[in-house]
């Protein structure tokens, strides 16, 4: 609870700074833009946070985002209808999670190593798939539209509902990605806080052994959580494709797994596992886009963003540890 209030305080402070940065910073269109970023980061944060709650880590999220965006585009260029391509990509994402989960639970490999390898492998797949072939060019929304006129209408619909862009002029009308985040957060919050699944996830995170001895099917739950995490990353890949003019396989989603982990930790997840709330995850994920926006308005180059992200994460971790030490009643 104190944790949620803490993040909330930070957010209020950051928005205060943002409003005073530039006259356009407080404009509706800018706020919607920021909210969309928050939605995108928030979705992968939810996935990363669930994995962290069961005591794992997923470093492949960013690659899954990039790869999903590429595959989504390529599928459509190859003639798959957008409405069919979306579920296919999400299914593919959850398959990646299933493989990660399988390697971690059945072969008892370390989550860090498995998903680190996954990060490279999936990035590699994205780059191979993205190579332009004679009959199609680079992966981009405009190329899909050019190749398949019939997809124009479905794509406009998707862009309206998932990104919030007007079918008429492409203007941002409302923060659809943020709304999607809220929707998913409510569903995940329900499972996490109201059902047996959530209890099992917390139990596994705190003590895998004790959970096992209490009859929890530890392996199955861990696999499920990795699948949810990767599926959400795939959703974000779809959003990314719909939002960007074109997708570069070598930088789309790079480093996003760290943004997701950052959001989860800021939101109150402990990397030791067993802690975290859905509300906290959403609030935690909202921090970074505001910082980025402030930096942009200050006219600083985007080069300083990693530095600021790192300092923020480190401060958060130190603060977290200090609070933890003060309130430690057991070991």
């Amino acid at each position, binding site marked *: 609870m104190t944790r949620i209030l803490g993040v909330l305080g930070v957010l209020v402070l950051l928005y205060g700074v943002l409003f005073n940065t530039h006259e356009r910073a407080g404009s509706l269109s800018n706020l919607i833009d920021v909210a969309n970023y928050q939605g995108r980061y928030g979705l992968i944060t939810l996935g990363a946070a669930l994995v962290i709650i069961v005591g794992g880590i997923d470093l492949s999220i960013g690659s899954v985002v990039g790869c999903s965006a590429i595959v989504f585009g390529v599928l459509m260029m190859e003639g798959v209808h957008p409405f069919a391509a979306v579920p296919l990509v999400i299914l593919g994402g959850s398959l990646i999670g299933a493989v990660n989960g399988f390697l971690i639970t059945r072969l008892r490999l370390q989550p860090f190593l498995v998903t680190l390898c996954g990060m490279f492998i999936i990035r590699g797949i994205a780059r191979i798939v993205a190579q332009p072939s004679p009959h199609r060019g680079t992966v981009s929304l405009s190329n899909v539209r050019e190749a398949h006129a019939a997809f124009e209408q479905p794509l406009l619909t998707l862009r309206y509902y998932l990104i919030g862009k007007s079918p008429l002029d492409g203007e941002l009308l409302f923060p659809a990605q943020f709304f999607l985040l809220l929707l998913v957060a409510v569903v995940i919050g329900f499972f996490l806080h109201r059902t047996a699944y959530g209890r099992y996830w917390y*139990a596994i995170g705190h003590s895998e052994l004790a959970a096992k*001895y209490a*009859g929890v099917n530890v392996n199955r739950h861990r696999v499920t959580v990795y699948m949810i995490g990767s599926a959400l990353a795939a959703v974000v890949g779809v959003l990314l494709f719909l939002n960007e003019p074109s997708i570069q396989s070598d930088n789309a989603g790079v480093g996003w797994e760290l943004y997701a982990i950052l959001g989860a930790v800021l939101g109150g997840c402990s990397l030791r596992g067993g802690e975290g709330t859905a509300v906290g995850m959403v609030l935690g994920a909202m921090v970074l886009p505001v910082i980025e926006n402030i930096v942009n308005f200050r006219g600083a180059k985007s080069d300083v963003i990693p530095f600021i992200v790192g300092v923020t994460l480190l401060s958060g971790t130190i603060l977290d540890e200090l609070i933890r030490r003060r309130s430690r009643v057991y070991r």
Partner: protein
Amino acid sequence: MGTARILVTSTMSTARLEVRGLRKQFPGVLALDGVGLTLAPGEVLAVVGENGAGKSTLMKIVAGIESADAGAVWLDGQPVHFRTPAEAMTAGVILIHQELNLAENLTVTDNLFLGREVTHGGMVRVLNRRAMRQQAAALLARVGLPASRAAVRVESLSPGEKQLVEIARALGTAVRVLIMDEPTSSLTQRETERLYEVIEGLKAAGVSVLYISHRLAEVKRVADRVCVLRDGRLAGELRGPEITHENMVRLMVGRDLRQFYPKVHRRGGGGLPVLQLKNVCWAGGSSEPVSLEVRAGEILGMAGLVGAGRTELAEAVFGVRPLSAGTIELNGQPLRITSPTQAIAAGIVLVPEDRRLHGLILPASVGFNLSLPNLDRLSSRWGVRPRAEAELHRTWIERLRVRTPSAAQPVALLSGGNQQKIVYGKWLARQPQVLILDEPTRGVDVGAKAEIYALMDELAGQGVAVWMITSDMEELLGMADRIVVMHEGRIAGELVGAQRREEAVMQLATGGNTR
């Protein structure tokens, strides 16, 4: 003054090690209550006693691993107070642990000289490998290991060889007292024989040996003298021909049972078999199959020394450890159990030996822990029903008289007895058919113990088949309707009715023969 001083020194000098009035209090347990003993140069003194009698604590104090609350230790007439094992080692008191203390990734020679490497001197301390090799060969020869072993990495040695390397390392220092804690627990018969020879050699060299063991046959073989500990006190001392299996067992047990073992609800004898194990073997266990049955309404007590395979058997039945052979039947129906989930669904539950590791999610609340295995029953389509959950918490906190401010209290903050009650509560809410209790009252205060015993009696009276694994002799004799004793992975015997005597249990548990 001068003469008095000489007199004192001369009486002292007969004892290599003398311990007087050692006292050590652990939370809830008085581990040592004024223990004293002496050890002559070149003597082998065995210290025996039941699990928890205080043997290990005594040894740890002498070796500087634990510090005593009261009492004193003299070494060759000098009062000593070791604060660390390193200090004890420098003085020549070396403890060889049950868990070995070698650096697995280094060679035997590296280990023999770890911390006291021979160098060419100077600032950079270049290792004098040749000198170390030569000395290593000599040390290994003294424990009967071939010189070729010196260059081998420790991880590739057998447990017995590792034990011998530890002894060789001790020999390399100016060892005066060698303490061996269960040295044969991981040795083969041949390695054990070699250990005996090494001990003979140590005696001849004037090294005193403190030998701790459960295995009475072994003690009979190596010890010049035996001290028996019971409940943290010295129960008696045996020397020479007095050292017999019977004498040791009599001293180890032999106390009157108190009146807190109720048998009010049980009708005795037990009903139909509920759980039957037929020729069961488990992964990593002995090859000899185990058969066992637990009947409705009885408390089956299972005795045996630590490492006899009791916990492993229970874990195999509970689905934690895979079965390699045999069948489990519940009410006459064969049952396949490969995970705790299945065992629990069938009505078999386990109160594990280590509640902090296996029994409870310590940082989580009392309520979280009580609910955890019952969530299937507490959930509806809309998730866990808060009212049903609160009801379950209230019921079991009241019924087991758990002393906690609320269900929201982290379970880690409760006392051992109350923590253990939570483990019982989470299972009893499921109304199990078979209740497996592994050390049901370990680390539990006397008050909570009495409550747990009353509960066990009540449950058996309701027809639950209770299988109680215990190393507490009093508890075993006080609560069990029938006793099965395990020894080295097999059932050594069963004791019913008047056969349920401590001597008989100890005989079977230590590999002796009663039949």
